[in-house]
């Protein structure tokens, strides 16, 4: 059936264009939080791409691990990154914080 073949191609083309566009936006955006959220949605669309490639196991693994857990890890790390920068306001406080944290981490 011609219509079905054309529809398949349209679906694949749309998926490919949106995946590439999401990756571009995620890597080129100025705000890191926006980049991480776009990366999570990129992972979710990638699960659809795996289904199109007849790989449902990979789709399950990508949606759970690739999008979900990697996104959670990135957001947690970004929150801790901002935490450190907010704390280090002036010069001597930076030294005090680094000393305090290295004492904490070494025991």
């Amino acid at each position, binding site marked *: 059936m011609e219509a079905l073949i054309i529809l*398949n*191609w349209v679906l*694949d*083309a749309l998926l*490919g264009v949106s*995946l*590439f566009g999401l*990756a*571009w936006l*995620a*890597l*080129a955006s100025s705000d*890191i939080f926006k*980049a*991480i959220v776009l*990366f999570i949605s*990129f*992972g979710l669309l*990638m699960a659809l*791409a*795996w289904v*199109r*490639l*007849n*790989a449902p*196991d*990979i789709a399950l*693994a*990508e949606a759970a*691990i*690739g999008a979900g*857990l*990697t996104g959670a*890890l*990135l957001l*947690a*790390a*970004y929150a*801790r*990154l901002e935490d*450190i*920068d907010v704390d*280090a306001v002036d010069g001597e406080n*930076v030294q005090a914080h*680094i000393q305090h*944290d*290295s004492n904490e981490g070494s025991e």
Partner: protein
Amino acid sequence: MSYVYLYALLGVGLFVLGLNALIIHPHMLRKILAVNVMSTGVFLVLVALSSRNEEVLPDPVPHAMVITGIVVSVSATALALILMLKVNRATGKNELPDRGRD
């Protein structure tokens, strides 16, 4: 040319896009994001090239390799994030020290 080659070319494009972002951006978190996009591109190429023959079922060995690869990439990302936080704690900056200049 069947539709799997579209996904293979998309995988190549994602790999090069990630490589570009890895080289350009100095911020460490962006580098980790770029490496993840690169590995996703490589997985796409692997799986797309495994289902070229449309009459039979796809080859399950690259599927197993990609599942293994996804788990390994999430553990490497976790370790890289902890290293990034440690570097941030030690130097106070978000970017790796640039040795080539000044």
